[in-house]
């Protein structure tokens, strides 16, 4: 196995000060956790249902640990934590829209 993922940077990747370090903690910690939960929930909308009509329900549950690990190591290994944060945030927002919409519908139904 030979995977060369050598970082090509001309400046210190985390930059001066503790800002990038704190940013990486926030991105790899709470943001990744929230994003992976939203991706799991949002997947039910865009994942193919399959012949039995259950793949869009089963695979999000099955893949949750993999989604979290993938996002966590991306946040950890990306040279720029802010870029990783932006990508993960975009992913969270895109998958969070159907979740929020379903929640609103559910609450409206409950209120009526």
């Amino acid at each position, binding site marked *: 196995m030979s995977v060369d993922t050598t970082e090509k940077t001309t400046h210190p990747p985390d930059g001066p000060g503790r800002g990038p370090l704190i940013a990486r903690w926030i991105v790899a910690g709470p943001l990744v956790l929230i994003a992976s939960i939203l991706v799991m929930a949002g997947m*039910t909308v865009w994942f193919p249902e399959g012949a039995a009509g*259950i793949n869009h329900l089963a695979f999000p549950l*099955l893949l949750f*640990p993999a989604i979290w*690990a993938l996002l966590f190591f991306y946040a950890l290994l990306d040279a720029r934590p802010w870029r990783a944060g932006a990508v993960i945030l975009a992913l969270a927002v895109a998958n969070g829209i159907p979740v929020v919409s379903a929640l609103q519908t559910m609450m409206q139904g409950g209120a009526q």
Partner: protein
Amino acid sequence: MIKLSQERTRRLIAVHGWSAVVCGLFLYVVVLTGAVAVLVHEIGAWSVGGSKVAEPMAVPMDATLRTLAQQVPEAQREDVSLFANAAGELVVFFHTHQLNPATGNMEDFGTLMDVDPRSGEVLRSREGYGGEVFNAGPGDALDRFIVDLHVNLHLPDPWGLYATGILGLVMLVAAISGLLIHRHLIKDAFVAPRPSGALLQKKDRHVLAGTWGLVFGFVLAFTGSFFSFATALGLPLVAITAFGGDQVAAIETLVGAPAASDDTPAPMANLDAMHERSAREAGSVPLFTSVAHWGRADSQVLVFHSPAEGQLTGTSNLFDGASGEFLGVKPSLGTVPSAGTVAFDLMGPLHFGNFAGLLSKIVWVCLGLAMCYVTITGLQLWLQRREHDPLWQRLAGSVEVVAYGTPIALAGAAHAFFLSYGRADTHLWVASGFIGFSILSILVGLVLPRAALHRTLAGCLGALLVLLPLTRMLLGGTPWAAALATGNGVVVAMDMVMVLSGVICARVAAGLRWMPRFAAPLPGAAT
């Protein structure tokens, strides 16, 4: 070989180390109890002196079930669950579904009976919600305590599942970061511990055990966090997004929608004939039977089987409850086979290691114990590099106390079980035994100097394990001759495992270095 920049490697090493330091001891408890829980059926059978009948679910039970059905309130005859416990008794749960005010959820409510499969006599009966009556029998205490400690650390739902799920993710991080920072994976698999110094030797052993257990650690962490999060977090969220919060609808879609409702009274077909046909189809005796809508025209009987010879996963056969007609194999998810079903079916065998009988279970136990060794040696390496910092050295003592204290407390819980079985509340005694021996281990850790701690705790563990078969038999447990005569070789085998493990611990206590030592790093040991 995986090449990473210095900066990325530094970050990975930091995550690998800090994740172990923050969660390592809890992870050790979960992995150790998981390794023990692989043998939960064997431990259950051993604790109650073996099974009354070799295959309780293969014994004719149709007449018994019909008699029992007349003894429960009509409302509770809606559904029936049927399986065998470790003592070889039939467990029959007549139940309906109603809102549990304590949890706010729809739950099974009914009467659970432990029945002698030979005579049909009801040995014990209890009424309540599923969570209250299941595994609440006196013989269930020891194995359930171990399983619950592994699954939720005995914390209330859903917090216990969240905690073990997070520990699973931490293990996933440790496995993946370990893979990435090991630059020579193949070479590491055959590394010989260097005799040049304690730290290098310990590092080599950690790398060796970690490399061989890498795939297993990954599989265990992945499937473990799936099991923890799927029901506690995943299912409610999926139900919100796809079904507007209706978890019942989500479950019905996942397990396959029930047949059209028809509450016309209709006599049940012969269950023994259905079990016989199901066993022929599956190639193994039934493991669990679920009867939906007992005594109605729309009744369905679902018979679950463990994997047959040469199969990785078990099967479920569906029957028409009123006519007894075989309706076909029922996929575990949905109504027709799919990729989701295959992936879901693989999770259990991969996590529990029960796909090839006792052989795969033993392999899973050994790999689980190797993971425990990796966790503890990883922590010790971290601490050994910080041996001059008093703060870190306080943690060093607790590593040893937890490493030995957890199995000591488990062995103490087993002694407490034998002391109380048939005499007192076994569930209370097992929990008290575990807590009592945990406190005792902590006190030993506080009182003794670190140099004497390792041998003392190893000696205590060895003594407790060696004494277990004696305690069992002296307090009325099945003797070896009787166990062998009734086909309960598992009782004898488990006794021998306890004695053998105890002897190994005793040799470690005597300083004979027969197995990896969980010795705390002593000042000056690093080179």
